[in-house]
């Protein structure tokens, strides 16, 4: 301790004498200029958020989901949850009810027992938060209404549905394929010219503009494989987005796998494990947090993409889903949040072009920023120093 106390003032005096007992004005100016650059960047975020919030909040004030009404809304949400759980209706009701009724107590019980189940508790809590949020969405006519040509009636329900389904499909396709490719590159592939070519190819794919992936989706999933995907459907859109984010998933997963120390693998081989045993029980669990972070980041990218959806045929105007159920909607016309933003922005009516667009952007931003926040938190929480 004592040495530290002495060292600090001595360093300062050396610094000062090196500067010739004058303060370093150009250096200070340079530092301030660099700081200014950073602050300008941060200011853009603030101005952007304020602008969007300012334009879009009116819609939420008019159409429900206002902060001042929070307690009654919460009461109503709890009420609806209770009725939903005690009196399930329809297929989704019967599917969700047992899940919530059985899942919540089991999750809580497990979480109480051991620290390692905290993740499970987190997931269960996440699901219940989403569940309560779903009940909330029912209380705001903006979030629960379909797209419409009347600005007072238009809502983003179809967009939220489309975005969520697209994100899930992207994850379902890109996550396993991406992780498998990363495992192949890092664990199985020999270090030869072919492997290096595959790696170079992946890096280049990561830089291909998203419109080009839209063209690929249009040529392959919408046209060529229309008998499988049904043409301009959620399936074609989801597959296109999955291919779009695949290189990012592979690159981040590779980095996470590379960060697992070699000694761990050698320990595994030392006790007679096969390569797959080592990969499955040692490498993947230790790389999991990194892989998950990368996947979430790439999903939030997929959620925000508009250009590819424009090409693979998300709906450009108003359409009705009627009372088609979830399965039917997979093969029907669809839209997504960014697509709705783009469409409304093109309307001549300023209600659409400003207020509703900004409100839809708020919904989109809440989803993507929450995903980003989750990824950053995960990374900070699980970051390991070997």
């Amino acid at each position: 301790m004592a040495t530290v106390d002495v060292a600090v003032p001595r360093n300062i005096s050396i610094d000062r004498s090196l500067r010739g007992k004058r303060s370093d004005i150009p250096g200070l100016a340079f530092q301030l200029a660099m700081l200014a650059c950073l602050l300008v960047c941060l200011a853009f975020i603030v101005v952007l958020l304020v602008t969007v919030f300012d334009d879009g909040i009116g819609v939420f004030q008019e159409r429900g989901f206002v902060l001042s009404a929070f307690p009654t809304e919460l009461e109503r949400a709890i009420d609806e949850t209770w009725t939903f759980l005690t009196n399930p209706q329809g297929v989704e009701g019967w599917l969700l009810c047992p899940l919530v009724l059985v899942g919540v107590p089991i999750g809580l019980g497990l979480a109480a027992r051991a620290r390692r189940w905290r993740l499970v508790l987190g997931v269960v809590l996440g699901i219940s938060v989403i569940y309560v949020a779903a009940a909330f969405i029912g209380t705001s006519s903006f979030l629960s209404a379909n797209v419409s040509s009347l600005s007072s009636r238009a809502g983003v329900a179809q967009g939220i549905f489309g975005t969520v389904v697209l994100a899930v499909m992207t994850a379902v396709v890109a996550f396993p394929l991406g992780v498998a490719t990363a495992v192949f590159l890092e664990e199985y592939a020999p270090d030869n010219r072919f492997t290096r070519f595959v790696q170079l190819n992946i890096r280049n794919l990561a830089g291909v503009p998203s419109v080009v992936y839209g063209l690929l989706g249009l040529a392959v999933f919408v046209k060529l494989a229309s008998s499988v995907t049904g043409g301009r459907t959620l399936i074609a859109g989801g597959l296109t987005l999955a291919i779009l984010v695949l290189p990012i998933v592979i690159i981040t997963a590779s980095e996470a796998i590379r960060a697992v120390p070699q000694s761990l693998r050698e320990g595994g081989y030392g006790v007679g494990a096969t390569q797959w045993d080592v990969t499955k029980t040692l490498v993947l669990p230790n790389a999991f947090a990194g892989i998950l972070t990368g996947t979430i980041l790439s999903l939030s990218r997929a959620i925000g993409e508009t250009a590819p959806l424009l090409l693979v045929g998300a709906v450009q105007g108003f359409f009705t889903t009627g009372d088609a159920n979830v399965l039917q909607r997979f093969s029907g016309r669809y839209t997504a949040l960014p697509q709705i933003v783009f469409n409304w922005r093109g309307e001549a009516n300023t209600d659409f072009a400003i207020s509703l667009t900004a409100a839809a952007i708020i919904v989109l931003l809440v989803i993507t920023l929450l995903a980003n926040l989750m990824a950053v938190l995960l990374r900070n929480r699980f970051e390991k120093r070997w």
Partner: protein
Amino acid sequence: MSSVDGALLGLEGDGRRVRREQRIRRTFWGAGLSTLVISIAIIVSLTANSITFLANIDVGELLTFDTWSPRIGKFDVATLFMGSLIVTAVAMVIAIPLGLGAAVYLAEYARPRVRRVLKPILEVLAGIPSIVLGFFAITWIGPNVVVDALSGQSDFSLMTAGLGVGILVTPLIASVSEDAMRAVPSSLREASYGMGARRMTTVVRVVMPAAVSGIVAALMLAAARAIGETMVIALAGGAAGEAHFTSNPYDAGLTVTSAMASVAAGTDQIAGGGGQGAGQAFNSLFFLGLLLFTVTLLLNMIGNSFVRRVRERY
């Protein structure tokens, strides 16, 4: 690794175990090949439709420096490339100083705790969807910066779009070049201080030259991203469907990407593939895609080779 593999083969006598390993190995090879399949699919689908496009139009019309308007059969690619050039130039003029400045501050000046807070916030900016930045460009940058500060004529112009794209690629430049500067070993800095150099001299004359390949890589990747950016320009560029050749950034215009977006958004039959008038416009999408793909691929390859150089040296 191969010696370990050999030892393993000797150890695992169980045939079932060996077969399982082989099956799993084959699965992973398949996954590894999937990315090559994607690349081939991109190249084949782009070139096949481009050839149809080129066969059906007068190739001389591609460079008339006149008008891009698929509806009346005018396919002047030069108009679009000029637009892309203007937008990218404006974006880079904004993004290079801001991104590099932020990177220098984060890498060289900020205390660890400050850095830990500020860097995620900058990453949030990188995570904002481009369509949101497009909306921001027309509602805020257009009226406040382009019209008021730069006395442009209209909210919608290539200038507005370029500024929006600039904000979009700033975090990319900041993040890649910050990594490059942090990869410079501190022994270089200490040697510089030992020579009596002050901090600014160290940053400008020692750290930045040492990190130059990473910084160039950041700029290349950012340029590729700016050229490939679509939605900001589709919203803020001010032209839909057709554009005249212009070299004035304050004019409305189309870029390669926003022309694709407006063709896709303008004719509802495009993705359905039905409409009779949509034929050449539809194929022009793929031709533009091929040009875009080639340009960004070149930039990315240059950028990536610079990134590799950083990794190899330290």
